[in-house]
């Protein structure tokens, strides 16, 4: 079995309260294996442990237990993060520097040569459409532009893994679209992307797999690449069906058909629990297949799976 690029093994982090020194758990025995080249999402409420996970990966926090492995080798918390790019949740920069000076500083810290620095800064700023802001001071930039600079500094050295903590935060719809495109193009370059988001539709659009965290625990890992297993039901949409047929369909479905919200009068929909019920419904239609407008298999959305994993309303306060 291939070694995952990045592995979290029973990763645990607790903090101590200031006065009582009581343990406050932030992450509880989380194990994940992130494959090379995938876009992996972390989703969860505030305080679920997403940022704590990323800070542990970035070496800003020390694990209380468990370990992180990069290419199968343990990565201790004080080991320099070679090959990992990190963009924190809020873009924190030196206000007195220009964008060019900021990126040059970080490029130097990555150990890039002068020629590589120039080439990469030009390429990355063009990719993020901030090349015209190169000589602007950081303090003068909008939140969206700061977010772009944050991503720019993370992908500057062509890292093997780029960690983006809430990269869509503070972006307008077009900015979010650009960020999504950037994440996909980063993936296309062969970089593994690990990001967190509150916006499930973004995760659904971008991720190969998604981990659901709640109260510091891993609740589910959803593989969005593979077709979901069996549908949980089928929605049959019909038009102009005689009353006796509707009654028969109601008996098959276990509930009477309801008037469809869209499409005008005479439109009905009925939810059938399985394939057997679909066949029984077709039999009940007695060959009048022209009445069928649609037969839609129902699969749980990421939102439904998320809510099922964490429990609706199970919102945790920040630690």
């Amino acid at each position, binding site marked *: 079995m291939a070694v995952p690029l990045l592995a979290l093994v029973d990763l645990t982090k607790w903090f101590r309260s200031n006065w009582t020194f009581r343990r406050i758990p932030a992450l509880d025995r989380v194990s994940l294996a992130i494959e090379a080249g995938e876009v992996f999402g972390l989703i969860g409420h505030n305080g679920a442990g997403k940022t704590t996970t990323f800070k542990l990966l970035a070496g*800003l926090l020390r694990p209380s237990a468990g370990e992180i492995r990069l290419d199968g080798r343990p990565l201790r918390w004080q080991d*320099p993060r070679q090959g990992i790019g990190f963009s924190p949740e809020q873009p924190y920069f030196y206000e007195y520097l220009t964008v060019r000076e900021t990126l040059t*500083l970080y490029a130097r810290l990555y150990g890039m040569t002068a020629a590589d620095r120039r080439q990469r800064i030009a390429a990355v700023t063009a990719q993020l459409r901030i090349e015209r802001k190169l000589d602007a001071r950081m303090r003068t930039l909008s939140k969206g532009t700061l977010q772009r600079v944050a991503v720019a500094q993370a992908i500057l050295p062509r890292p093997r893994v780029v960690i983006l903590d809430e990269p869509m935060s503070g972006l307008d719809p077009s900015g979010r679209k650009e960020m999504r495109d950037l994440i996909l193009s980063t993936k296309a370059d062969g970089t593994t992307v690990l990001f967190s988001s509150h916006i499930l539709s973004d995760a659904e659009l971008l991720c190969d797999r998604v981990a659901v965290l709640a109260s510091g625990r891993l609740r589910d890992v959803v593989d969005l690449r593979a077709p979901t297993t069996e549908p949980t039901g089928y929605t049959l949409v019909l038009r102009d069906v005689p009353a006796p047929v509707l009654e028969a369909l109601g008996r098959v479905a276990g509930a009477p058909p309801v008037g469809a919200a869209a499409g005008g009068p005479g439109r009905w929909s009925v939810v059938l629990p399985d394939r057997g019920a679909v066949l029984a419904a077709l039999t009940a239609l007695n060959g009048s297949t022209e009445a069928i407008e649609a037969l839609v298999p129902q699969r749980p959305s990421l939102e439904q799976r998320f809510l099922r994993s964490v429990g609706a309303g199970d919102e945790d306060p920040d630690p």
Partner: protein
Amino acid sequence: MKVLALALNTSREAIRNKVMYSILLFAAVLTAVSAAFGAASLGDTLRFVKDFSFFSISLFGVITTVVLGVNLLSKELGRRTIFNILSKPVARWEFLVGKFLGLLATVVSMLAVMALALVGLLFALEGQMDWQVLPVVGTMMLELAVLSAAAIFFSSIVVTPALAGLFTAATFIAGRSAGELTYFAGPEQPPVLRAIARGLSAVLPHLDQLYVADRLSHGQSLPVSFYAIATAYAGAYVAVLLLLSVVIFRRREFV
């Protein structure tokens, strides 16, 4: 390379800080005032100007070092800019040494500017170059190197810059008074007091030995070996303080 990048950035931050220019301007004004008072004084005008200028340079050097030094780490932590630094392949020691070198470069540059201004002033008064300024300001730089390391050390222990500033200022005052400890370590003192005085004498930086302005402006000359020993002493003290800072800072987490 990484250390230099961090040092350059630290200096750049200080240089773009308007407070620095206010301190420099104030020091220049004070030196000019000393020249005016010196001209009006009854005694040795030149000695008055030199004493007052050396005092001003030292005072503003210390103020700058303490103010910039204790804010270096707290600013990084408060503005969370440290997240973007330490998540790069940068060792903790590289970060601290970079900060120290950046602070030192800033303070040394500031002292050099003030020293040049003083040389110019003395040239205007004496009609010849007075190179005595150089060893005085040179030893002041050694003193400020020790103080910079102390500021980094206390910043790595305590969270608030005010407390770190208090400890650094206390170190400066105690260090300038370290010579007085020989009195309390004398045989006529109680054993407990002697032990405390000896302990403090061993731990505190002997900054009094590095401040030679009084001796030089009174015509005393110092051998080259004195400067060599003073440089070695300051270097060793800085190295120990930075080592301790790194040991403490290595354990620090960033929530």
